[in-house]
């Protein structure tokens, strides 16, 4: 009989309010194994990690570590049991040295104990040597590159005696060469009997590194396979695997003139490279891709928040330089941002103020506020978009998520834009509000607006879009027709278009 797995999850369930993020996941990890975890955005990977690291308590189910069932896991006890997580963005103290960072993680004891600097340094050097990292122990972490910082994290994990190391998209911000360095370290960890849970969107990494792979979808495990027994197409099928069940309003508009034309646009600061596409009046152009694909970054370029430094942007055939949001608004571009709670709606201000925030010069000529005009505009939008609220004077914070989104939308519709960019408009809104927003988007397109719809919800972006641009790594990888097969879209997002489409 083989030894008990290092980590075993049995029927793990986690609910947030009414939403079930994990619906009974079984998972196990053996010593000396790299087990990849794969899934779409929101499939439950992060939730799974958070329960294993003790950040969130599972609603039901069992976590078994080395044959022993543990309950009431907290971050501290998880660490004591040898579980370590290395996040995409290392959580180190940038102003402290490598030695100090490692010591802070590993040392415990009285607040007023004496610090043995020499022993600290020796231990840090040992740990760094174990993973073959050539990092000066006295260097400030600020001066290290991203992969070097990850190596420091791994050294911390090893020093803490970690037997289970979780790596969450560790290569997302690494160059090819740095990736190979990291792979070598992962293989070494495996060799020394550590179990590694490896999360990545990059299929080629999984095939290069992992022994087994588990695919999560909608909070459920849809299968664990040895890497040798499955190919990329098979994985994609597992990841997508669901029918586009929801009904989306049909496209009623025929595409008109080209409104926005983007030619080889790039922005070094935000990692957008040579993006080229057109959007026509009356068209919904979807932007799909995995987290970190560069969709929001592209939207921010088009809205002048991080102006483009290469390529050209044409609006209605005329070349324009969009250098600031004010500029973008003047050119008829509207951007409804992703995180409406933080940036879309000012929660303290009344709905009416929120709605007129972007159009002061037009609605208030001479800068004198006209409350009558503001009120009637607000009432019109409240009726038009069916915003459920106590009235135009109610503060933005008093509304539900879906209704806040409508207020945010109203603010930008009030600018009478030619191009509307919606960034995750239905994130965190309930099903009813979601389909209402879908109908509104369709109606706006029918009225001749050009719409760019950014969405991580694959059925939504496929169901709503007339054409779908698929992004990955900051560039546009493919432009697909609306109602495309989800497998094809996912394959393009994963960067395996040729093989995946077969």
């Amino acid at each position, binding site marked *: 009989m083989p030894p008990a797995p290092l980590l075993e999850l049995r029927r793990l369930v986690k609910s947030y309010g009414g939403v079930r993020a994990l619906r009974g996941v079984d998972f196990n990890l053996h010593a000396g194994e790299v087990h990849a975890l794969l899934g779409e955005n929101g499939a439950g990977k992060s939730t799974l990690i958070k329960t294993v690291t003790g950040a969130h308590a599972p609603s039901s189910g069992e976590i078994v570590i080395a044959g022993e069932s543990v309950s009431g896991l907290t971050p501290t006890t998880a660490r004591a049991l040898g579980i370590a997580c290395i996040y995409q963005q290392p959580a180190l103290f940038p102003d402290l040295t490598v030695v100090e960072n490692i010591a802070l993680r590993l040392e415990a004891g009285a607040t007023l104990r004496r610090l043995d600097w020499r022993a600290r340094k020796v231990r840090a050097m040992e740990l760094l040597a174990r993973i073959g990292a050539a990092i000066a122990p006295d260097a400030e972490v600020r001066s290290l590159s991203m992969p070097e910082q990850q190596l420091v994290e791994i050294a911390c994990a090893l020093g803490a005696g970690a037997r289970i190391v979780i790596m969450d998209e560790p290569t997302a911000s690494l160059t090819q060469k740095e990736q190979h360095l990291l792979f070598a370290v992962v293989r070494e960890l495996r060799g020394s009997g550590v179990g590694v849970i490896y999360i990545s969107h990059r299929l080629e990494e999984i095939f290069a590194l992992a022994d087994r792979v588990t695919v999560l979808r909608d909070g459920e495990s849809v299968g664990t396979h040895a890497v040798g027994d499955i190919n990329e197409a098979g994985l994609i099928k597992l990841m997508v695997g669901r029918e586009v069940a929801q009904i989306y309003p049909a496209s009623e508009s025929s595409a008109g003139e080209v409104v926005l034309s983007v030619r080889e646009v790039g922005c070094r600061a935000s990692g957008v490279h040579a993006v080229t596409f057109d959007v026509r009046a009356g068209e919904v152009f979807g932007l799909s891709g995995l987290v970190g694909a560069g969709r929001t970054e592209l939207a921010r370029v088009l809205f002048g928040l991080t102006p483009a430094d290469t390529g050209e942007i044409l609006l209605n055939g005329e070349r324009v330089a969009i250098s600031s*949001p004010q500029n973008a608004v003047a050119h008829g571009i509207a951007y409804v941002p992703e995180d409406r709670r933080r940036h879309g709606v*000012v*929660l303290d201000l009344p709905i009416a103020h929120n709605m007129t925030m972007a159009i002061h010069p037009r609605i208030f000529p001479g800068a004198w506020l006209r409350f009558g005009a503001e009120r009637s505009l607000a009432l019109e939008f409240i009726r038009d978009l069916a915003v459920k609220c106590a009235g135009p004077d109610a503060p933005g914070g008093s509304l539900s998520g879906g209704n806040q989104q409508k207020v945010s939308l109203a603010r930008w519709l009030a600018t009478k834009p030619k191009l509307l960019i919606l960034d995750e408009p239905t994130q965190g809104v309930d099903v009813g509000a979601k389909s209402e927003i879908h109908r509104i988007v369709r109606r706006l397109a029918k009225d001749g607006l050009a719409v760019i719809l950014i969405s991580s919800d694959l059925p939504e972006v496929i169901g709503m879009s007339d054409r779908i641009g698929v992004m990955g790594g900051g560039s546009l990888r493919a432009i697909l027709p609306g109602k495309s097969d989800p497998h094809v879209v996912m394959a393009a997002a994963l960067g395996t278009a040729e093989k995946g489409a077969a």
Partner: protein
Amino acid sequence: MKKYFRELSVVAALGAVLLGLAMFAPAFFQPQPLLSLVTREAPTLVVACGMALVIIARQIDISVGSQFSVCSVCAGLLAARGWPLVLVLPASALLGASLGAINGLLVAGLRLPSIVVTLATMVTLRQGLNLFRQGEFVNMPDKFQWLGLSQSGGQWTLVGAAFALLIVLGLAMRHVAAGRFVYAVGTDAEAARLAGIRPGRVTFLVFIFIGALTGLAAIMNIVQSPQVQPLSGAGLELKVIAAVVVGGVAISGGRGNLWGAFAGLLLLACVSPALTHLHIEAYWEKAIQGAIILLAVVADGVRSRKESRG
């Protein structure tokens, strides 16, 4: 009614104090001493208006006291050289605005925290002035005394001017688009930026504005006495910040109005004469003022905790 609950509660407290005085010390309401009291506070009111704007924009300016001193001394020197009031007044406002522009440039341009920036300019201006003047007083020409009017005429003019400014600014904050920009930036600068407002510019202008008001207030102060003290503005920043906070302007920005700041200022200003009239030792003054500030801050804390719990 509910919307202005915070402001109205300050007004109620003020009313209670005045009522108490009316019952136990009716001498407080003799017209001439009362007018003198209000006149003394008129320059403070003008600076408090500016401070309310700065704090609503989620900044703070603790250099106003030093700005006030610098403007007072410079205006006094110009006056002593024979400049007429019609020139000294705009010169002082302009000087204040330039000092404010330095703060604004550092805060908005370099994105430095305003408390540190204005702490630095506060100390620099104060010590610079000390070095330059060695504590010397400036003697004002007689024609500046009470703006060249009779004493009561001058007093009424100053009080009237301060009130006019309060009313104009208070209305502007509600009725001019720029006022709403200040609230928007103070509540959520990033949201404001996404809505096409330029938070940096708003912040910069707010600092210039408080500087100009401080320059103006300095003139309103120096015409009340024959001499300009070298450090006439010492402690002014604490006084106006306290007034603004007591009046319900949230130190975290985006909330409150000038009417509340005005009520807060009156409440704090009443403490000292009330004690005198009630024959209580003057030592109590600061303690009572401190207690009022504490009460206001605690009330705001309780309120915002209640709100965040939904």
